[in-house]
């Protein structure tokens, strides 16, 4: 990244289309620089959890990198702090008289399973890593004698390799909108019979469900009732793609839930190409000035002065 040392009293900057006049009356201070915000994304750390497109995400663009490992670590630290329930560690125990239903009208004997659940102090992160370990184990194990049933019936031919050993890899999402999307095989330890179990609404136990034989979507009723000037434009009408068939919809609905990590929303390719907005660490306005000591951003001289006091105490002169 090119840095322009301040050598004029007035500098004109362009920030996201907004032209800013910076009137700097003071003499240039050492240790800082004006930085145009045209940098390409990549300044955020690579060690945040990624999701479905793990393979595609593995190599974020590395051009125009203007952050350091120190700054990446700082972002990670700050994100972790923003995720916390409270600033301090707190422990609020359940009143002792209530434990194991003592002194309370019981619902009956506590079963061993429930006792174990009530005593567990695992966090969500604990459970998630347990799940990931189990999934990794399941995908590492050779799939025993599960040829046909292990491949869900919803699989569309040609979209994945049918080889059972491929279960450890995620299939990249397809953009082909004419093909119903497919899910990748389960990575948990599952018996073929579990995999073959149809979802509940298709099972015989719910044959009395009122909608079973009815079409999933009628062609009327889904067009919004609010009228729109283009509603009856034959040109536009013809462009609206046809509804999927009943069979396609059933396939879609039969796809099992994704895992927690798989459902995490992407940072899209397009967004990665956009510049990341930088803000003044003191006042929150655009961070157009970069402190060369710590890499922090400030907006102008007032905030720089404040920042530098802080910066000196942290990093020394």
């Amino acid at each position, binding site marked *: 990244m090119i840095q322009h040392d301040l050598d004029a009293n007035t500098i004109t900057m362009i920030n*996201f289309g*907004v032209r800013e006049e910076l*009137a*700097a009356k003071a003499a240039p201070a050492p240790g800082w620089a004006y930085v145009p915000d045209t940098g390409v994304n990549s300044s*955020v*750390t690579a060690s*945040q959890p*990624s999701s479905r497109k793990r393979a595609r995400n593995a190599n974020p663009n590395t051009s125009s990198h203007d952050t350091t490992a120190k700054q990446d670590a700082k*972002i990670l630290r*700050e*994100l972790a*702090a*923003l995720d916390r329930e409270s*600033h*301090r560690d*707190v422990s*609020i125990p*359940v009143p002792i008289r209530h434990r194991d239903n003592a002194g*309370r*009208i019981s*619902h*009956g004997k*506590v*079963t061993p399973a*429930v006792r174990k*659940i*009530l005593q*567990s*102090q695992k966090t*969500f992160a604990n459970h998630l890593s347990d*799940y990931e370990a189990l999934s990794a184990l399941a995908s590492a194990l050779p799939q025993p004698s599960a040829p046909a049933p292990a491949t869900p019936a919803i699989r569309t031919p040609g979209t994945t390799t049918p080889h059972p050993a491929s279960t450890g890899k995620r299939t990249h*999402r397809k953009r082909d*909108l*004419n093909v*119903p999307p*497919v899910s990748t095989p389960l990575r948990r330890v599952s018996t073929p019979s579990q995999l073959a179990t149809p979802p*509940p609404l298709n099972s015989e136990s719910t044959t*009395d469900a*009122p*909608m079973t034989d009815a079409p999933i*979507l009628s062609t009327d009723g*889904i*067009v919004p009732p*609010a009228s729109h000037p*283009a509603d009856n434009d034959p040109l536009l009408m013809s462009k609206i*793609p046809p*509804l999927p068939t009943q069979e396609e919809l059933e396939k*879609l609905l039969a*796809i*099992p839930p*994704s895992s927690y990590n798989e459902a995490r*929303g*992407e940072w899209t390719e397009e*967004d990665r190409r956009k510049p990341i907005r930088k803000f003044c660490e*003191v*006042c*929150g*306005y655009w961070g157009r000035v970069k402190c060369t000591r710590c890499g922090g951003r400030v907006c*102008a001289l*007032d905030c720089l002065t404040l920042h530098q006091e802080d910066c000196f105490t942290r990093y020394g002169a």
Partner: protein
Amino acid sequence: MPTKSSAPQAPSRTLVIDNGAYTMKAGFSSAAGPEECRVIPNCMARDREKHVYIGSQLEKCKDFGDIVFRRPVEKGYLVNWEAEKEIWEHEFFEDKAPSHCDPSETGLILTEAPNALPVLQTNCDQVVFEEFQFASYFRCPGPVLNAYNDVQATFKGPARDPAKPVLPTEIMLLIDSGYSHTTVTPLLQGRPLQSAIRRLDVGGKLMTNYLTRLLSLRQYDMRNDTYLVNEIKEACCYVSRDFHADMEQTWKGTRGEKRVPGSIVKDYVLPDYHSRPKGYMRDHDPSTKKKLGVPGEAEDILTLGNERFTVPELIFNPTDIGLRQSGIAEQVMESLSVLPIGLWPALLANIIVVGGNANISDFIYRLQRDIRALAPAECIVRVARPADPILATWEGGAALATNTEALSTLSVTKQEYDEHGSAWVARRFGGK
């Protein structure tokens, strides 16, 4: 094969619990219609006098200074049953519980966040049947219940016929933006299209913590007052219609060229928990700033400028804090991208936003505009929020419970659980 008719009669009354991380929404419903819904803090709390509050007891708390919380729902998922049981006992099962019921004569509809961990789902099923022994039970992702609300009426269309049984909306796209995160869930006939569910890890907690950080850096240390900061956020924050213009209006200018703060800048008068139990927002008065710290002065004031809109902006631009995810509008398009294009027009025209963040001023306007900019030009984009986005999921569940036949086909009975076990129940509720 036992059929429904041989099973004991379905319970006439259903307890609907939308078990959120910040608050749970709970109340009864039956064929006669929904009863009152209570919004209950889903937490145990301890104030600085070391007094512990459980769930709705928190309304008795008068001093929220230095208060700390223990929440059984973490990241949107029910993780700690020890604490949750304490709260449920207090709210539903103890003799003096405000919403008292006998679970063995009551059905339960319980929400979970989408993409839950199977082990947490099994824990939940076991506690519901083995500990509380509810007569029947339907566990589902919260977004699903919204399909039972009158979606067309939310879009100012004709209201549905109250004489007819409640059926799920044919097709909709449900955005749930709560305390823990924001999820996008397309729904067909009240069934989620699982492969298209997307989660953005920005919710009310992250925004409150971010506001806490900004205020602590710029004004007072608020790090032990997140409860108060949440109130400040709810009173002051809004989604910007023009981020750059609002940024200019709230900038103090340079040393040589001070700017007069625009009307966006507001003061928040902090509560003192004596004469002023609640804080409030008012127009910024530059002269009050100087009075701070003067003995005898009764008011402590925080001034909010760009904090008012840079905080909710995180839902639209998570990378503003370095979070590697695209914003909510992009997540909607990502969700659609795995679905047949034939479903897009109906989904884009029926987007409903629920959860506390839907109450942030101009959230709906901005979301509709941002999706409009990304969606195919031929598609109509309509985004709306129900009258009360916090209660909406509960209301959907309560509406479903009025259709006892529909609910019983979705539910599992205690008898079925005893016969088939928890793995069967997990599959029945669509888990893998």
